[in-house]
């Protein structure tokens, strides 16, 4: 932004006058896709300078609550809304997937760069039934690696988060014990382990404390070069998290009309088992014509040009089939008065 623009804006701001006819659209929700969304909204603003889409990452729960209260124009969430929540909405709300993400296990064991994890191993570690690194559940799948006899220190998220939701959702699917005793949620009653706040809290704890294991978003692991490893999927193959394997998980899953689906442990040989959609929550009827126009324009742009911006930032783009179905859903959004 040029300096002249800065002083002009400063002046207009403090005087409360409107310097230009910009329309501000407010959205709130998930932190996981925030970097990508901020990129998208900035790019969109460059193309349509009168549209300002302001997104704040206050958390998936926050996004759901604010869209239900009507204080924002759209929401965003990593975990789909429940039927009960949808019932509370004054105007029906659409779930529109934007990109895919993945959760990867990360650990700190001296001299070990990569480990293969089975679903039973992951569930056992976080349940507290597998307590040492040289447990057969781990050594069996990793024959060439020397694992110490040290106790495992699990690290989980202390804050409610979509990442935890995806991870616990996966564990609930692969471990009946987990589903019965802990369950799935943005925050759960973890049987063991330390709690770190945010991805950086978990990553920090794992990096600094020996013999720890935690879980973080893929982007985080890639950006910070954290040691990780492939996880065995429902077809029996050990698949590492990558843009391709995550998109494969979405392609292989059966997706309902309202797009509310969990794709953890999805079928498909190349599917990464701990993947998930992230959604935008948009009302089916938008009263303000300007805001409605901007939102629908953005959504169409997002499905076309926006997807291309996802991979450089380590977000997996949507499969083509999903994009097509979503376009049809977007056309149903009504803008303006009745």
């Amino acid at each position: 932004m040029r300096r002249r623009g800065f002083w002009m804006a400063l002046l207009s701001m403090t005087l409360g006058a409107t310097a230009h006819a910009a329309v501000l659209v407010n959205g709130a929700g998930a932190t996981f896709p925030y970097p990508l969304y901020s990129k998208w909204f900035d790019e969109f603003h460059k193309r349509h300078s009168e549209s300002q889409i302001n997104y704040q990452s206050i958390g998936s729960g926050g996004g759901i609550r604010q869209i239900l209260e009507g204080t924002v124009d759209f929401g965003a969430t990593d975990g789909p809304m429940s039927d009960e929540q949808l019932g509370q909405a004054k105007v029906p709300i659409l779930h529109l997937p934007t990109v895919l993400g993945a959760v990867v296990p990360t650990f700190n064991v001296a001299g070990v760069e990569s480990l293969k994890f089975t679903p039973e191993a992951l569930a056992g570690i976080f349940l507290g039934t597998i307590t040492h690194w040289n447990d057969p559940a781990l050594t069996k799948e990793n024959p060439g690696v020397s694992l110490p006899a040290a106790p495992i220190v699990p690290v989980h998220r202390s804050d409610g988060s979509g990442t935890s939701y995806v991870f616990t959702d996966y564990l609930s699917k692969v471990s009946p014990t987990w589903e019965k005793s802990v369950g799935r949620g943005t925050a759960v009653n973890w049987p063991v382990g330390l709690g770190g706040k945010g991805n950086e809290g978990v990553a920090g704890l794992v990096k600094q404390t020996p013999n720890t294991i935690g879980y973080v978003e893929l982007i985080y692991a890639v950006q910070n070069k954290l040691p990780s490893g492939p996880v065995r999927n429902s077809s029996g193959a050990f698949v590492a998290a990558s843009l391709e394997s995550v998109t494969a998980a979405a392609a292989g899953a059966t997706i309902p009309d309202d797009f509310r689906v969990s794709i953890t442990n999805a079928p498909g040989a190349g599917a990464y088992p701990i993947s998930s959609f992230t959604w935008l929550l948009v009302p089916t009827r938008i009263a303000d014509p300007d805001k409605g126009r901007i939102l629908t324009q953005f959504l169409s742009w997002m499905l076309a040009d926006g997807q291309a911006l996802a991979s450089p930032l380590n977000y997996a783009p949507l499969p083509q089939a999903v994009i097509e179905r979503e376009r049809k859903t977007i056309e149903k959004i009504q803008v303006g008065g009745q």
Partner: protein
Amino acid sequence: METLSPVVPPRRPSVPRLAIGRTAATSLTPVLAGRGERLLGSSRRRRWADPIFRTTSLAFALTVIAMTAVIASVLFLRSAPARAAFGWGFLTSSTWDPVFEHFGVLPFVWGTLASSAIALLLALPLGLGAAICLSELLPTRWSDPAAFLIELLVAVPSVVYGLVGVFVLVPLMRNIEGILQSTLGFLPIFAGPAYGIGLLTAGILLAVMIVPFVVTISREVLLAVPRAQRDAALALGATRWETVRHVVVPYARSGILGSVFLALARALGETMAVTMVIGNRPEISASLFAPAHTMAAVLANEFTEATGDVYLAALVEVALVLFVITIVVNALARLLILTVRAPDPARV
């Protein structure tokens, strides 16, 4: 320097004695010199100016009560679903399960009280000692800039404290805890693995965060003690330390305790920094090295993501419990003051 020198430069600023002559005279002389008619007006104006001033200041003072009452009622009303679901069991249960919706606040109460107690135990002597040094020993030229800088610590965002805590304090504590454990590990308070993250680390970080309150306010309070008090003690032959200990600090006791209240309150409500170093495990343990959780931390962690009416209400109830604890702790502290000092009914 223990003896009183006859010509004393204003090295330690205190409430001005000369100001009686200066301030009052310069502001009142025009009044008395007849121009006062403009200032005081007729006796009619004199009659209502005082009550108006008093009422206005009373009104503002009452808004404090009003605001606190509003917060209390919002907390009470919005926690209704949880109170209905759990009743008093909420206070005794140690489970925190958002999935199966069993909630209990006890581990958080423990973590809050323990970490705040550690913080106060560290911050009070440190802060008071530093304040004494800054007010009694250092000339104003040095102690003023030092005080400005210490005040800056208050403006450091909590998340920055947390980050510095994670990157600097935690590794340090891991080493220290390791040493403590190898020497004194048989004591229950030093038991358990030394992660570096835990109750003790959180207490120390909190102490760093609340020390500026104690230092800044205590220093100003100590500086404001009238010079006459010090002079009298010194004239009687006391050493400077004895003057400080027996005359200056007791005179300033109310202000110092006030600073402790402010510090304690901040410790109880601190969120972001604590959550990054305390381990966030809702468990009660005797060991200082164990991870714990606090009420404010669980609010900061889970409030924005909480979906589900009972879950949200349970979090609000945690806030309500914290509110009540603050009331109780303040009450206890005031009782302590009342027993410690000669009763001065206006000063509680």
